């Protein structure tokens, strides 16, 4: 006689297995609901985690670019304000100097020269601007200001112009000194131009303007010529002194274009940095959304799953309780 019989252990095994399986599912769903992250990201992405890692790497890099664009923007702004400061200093005295020969008395020329000397010091101060401890016109030697003191420069110029008898001689000497690598080139304490600064993936901003830039150098030359008058060059020759003042004014007027061009160039860089910054921020936002999309659990889905598994587990408990009471032994008492 064959009898159909099902061993006790069979039911126990099945119930225990289903119980532990459901409890594991509950735990997983609960963790996903509370943390919003997949418990097994590898499985969620079917073994190809490259997209997630690419997004994470881009986000990390964008955070770095956020820092470097802020720095670059700060430096460009400092350069810009120094250049516009130079323009203002020049504009404030150009007309006075231009009129030195025609309308001014020697005493007035002297006063203008004294003012030019003050302005030279201010201009050099502007060129020596530092932004958060970084000298902005020093090129790579960011720890040193580009120029020494105005008096040192004037002394050097006096030496260069020693023996000059006419305003023309002085002009030649001054211009020669400024374009001489052993003159202004040696006076410049900064380094080579800064290399381009990264502001966005594959994009750089050019902050290479130094105090050696012709626009800055020639402006300084203009101020210096006038200041030399105050130091006493061509002493006793009022006519030549007035002529030199006029030449200085002409130089400052002539370099106005160069200053505007420089200012525009720096402005372009600023715009470029700002554009990069905006683009980075937009990219960061969209990548953040993408990151949440591929790396996070849909909370509604996880909550629904949790609820479904909970109901299942409760049914299993009910079944377990009912089935365990189903025993012939119970009825044989």
């Amino acid at each position: 006689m064959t009898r159909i019989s099902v061993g006790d252990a069979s039911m126990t095994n099945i119930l225990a297995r289903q119980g532990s399986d459901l409890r594991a599912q509950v735990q997983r769903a609960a963790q996903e609901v509370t943390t919003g992250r997949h418990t097994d990201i590898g499985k969620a992405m079917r073994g190809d985690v490259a997209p997630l890692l690419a997004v994470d790497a881009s986000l990390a890099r964008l955070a770095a670019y956020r820092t470097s664009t802020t720095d670059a923007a700060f430096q460009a702004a400092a350069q810009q304000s120094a250049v516009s400061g130079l323009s203002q200093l020049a504009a404030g005295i150009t007309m006075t100097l231009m009129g030195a020969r025609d309308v001014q008395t020697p005493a007035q020329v002297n006063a203008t020269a004294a003012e030019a000397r003050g302005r030279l010091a201010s201009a050099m101060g502007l060129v020596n601007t530092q932004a958060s401890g970084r000298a902005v016109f020093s090129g790579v030697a960011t720890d040193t200001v580009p120029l020494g003191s105005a008096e040192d420069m004037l002394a050097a110029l006096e030496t260069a112009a020693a023996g000059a008898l006419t305003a023309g001689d002085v002009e030649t000497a001054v211009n020669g000194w400024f374009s001489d690598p052993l003159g202004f080139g040696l006076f410049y304490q900064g380094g080579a131009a800064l290399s381009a600064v990264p502001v966005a993936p594959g994009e750089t901003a050019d902050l290479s303007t130094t105090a050696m830039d012709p626009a800055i150098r020639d402006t300084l030359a203009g101020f210096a010529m006038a200041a030399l008058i105050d130091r006493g060059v061509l002493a006793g020759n009022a006519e030549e002194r007035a002529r030199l003042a006029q030449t200085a004014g002409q130089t400052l007027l002539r370099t106005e274009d160069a200053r505007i061009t420089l200012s525009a160039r720096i402005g372009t860089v600023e715009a470029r940095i700002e554009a990069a910054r905006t683009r980075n921020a937009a990219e960061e936002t969209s990548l953040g959304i993408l990151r949440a999309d591929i790396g996070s659990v849909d909370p509604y889905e996880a909550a629904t799953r949790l609820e479904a598994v909970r109901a299942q587990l409760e049914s299993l408990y009910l079944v377990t309780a009912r089935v365990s009471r189903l025993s012939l032994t119970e009825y044989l008492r």
Partner: protein
Amino acid sequence: MSVTSALAGALSGLSATSRQAEILSSNVANATTPGYVRREVGLGAAVLAGHGQGVQILGVRRDVDRHLLGERRLAEAGTGDRDVRAGFLQRVERALGSADSPSSLAARLAAFDQALVEAAGRPESQARLNGIATTARSLIAGFAAATTDIQTARAAADRRIGEEVTRLNATLQQLHELNVNLRSFTGAGRDVSALLDERQRLVDQISAIVPVREVPRDLNQIALFTTGGAPLLEGSAAEIGFTPVHTITPEMTQALGGLSGITINGRPFDTAGSASPILGGTLGALFSVRDELAVSAQGKLDAAARDLVERFSGIDPTLAPGAAGLFTDAGGAFDPLDEVGLAGRLRLNPAADPDQGGALFRLRDGLGAATEGPPGNGTLLSALHSALTGARPLSSTGFPAGNRSFAALASDILSDAAALRLSAQSEQSFTAARLTALTDLEAQNGIDTDREMQELLVIEKNYAANAKVIQAVADMIDTLIRLDG
């Protein structure tokens, strides 16, 4: 036919039902004992000189399904094999870090990348240069930790092989002794069910380690062969030899020496490949972890480490050609012939590492720079970043070739680890489902207390009926005796 023979028949009925009750009680008591097989008393009509003489006990039968048992053992071996492999691959994936964990190799790399960009934007900042050194050290630490994890897992596999082999030898010895006992007990006609249960349990243990085929022999004897064909028990127990080692370094392999293979009765056998007789169970899987999976995982890690080293060598103009770049092989230049284990030997170049007496400015000015250069010079830092992000062919053969940036390589390696782990886990769940199904079937053949209780009712009734017969016979004899008096 006499009254006394009726008494004898009823008595035989009583003893048969008592025996049935005894076996039934043993069944009920062992309802949840693993490895216990349900027994039944075999009954037959006793015949004496051509006449029925009550009931006789033919023996105790074990209710075992040999085919199912064999299938279940194979499934168990397969599950053991897959468990070991999947466990190891999961460990490798954890060692590299899960994709969304901040301590993963990819996250460490992203931090290093970030530090390079930030420093290139402001080369004079000591804090940012220090950021490069810190994140580079963290990247190195990630490689080192993954190497340690993989090699620890390898050492653990080697140690476990030793333990399994010891257990295998001990179990085979026990099986041999059981065989001897069974021969004499069976010869003497005694109930050997308990011994058979015990033997079945021991064979189960062996078959989890190495899948075996059980061949029955006369007098309840068995011979055991691995499914690959190596004899484990045939007359006497085989002696399996293996020598575990204490520490394992990446360079040690079974082929190049340093690690033990396996011998059976002194004869060496393959531990991998189609000729190996020990594959299919945990033992084979452990050998595979030690000799193949871990070696391949380490190879991939070393390939990445080598790529990292090579990316940063030759871009620093202050260094002599061939000198070690930012990442070094234990402080020195990397030798392409010595790639194995590189991931564990990576160090930051001492010249740029303040912890090793170097100076941070060399990150900016060049590792060979004697004195600090202009602080705003970001050329080299930008070059370092381009070296890290540029696509470059992989020079190592440890990982599929391709033109990749280092981030792409790292993410390929992480993806590879995740994919391997997932496919191992899907195989694992397949074998586990098969084992579950077979175990359920086996459990269904196990003790059903309801059925035993039904039998108990029958036994009770039979016992009462036999007793009633004895009482009736006694009354009949009494009646006869009273005729005298």
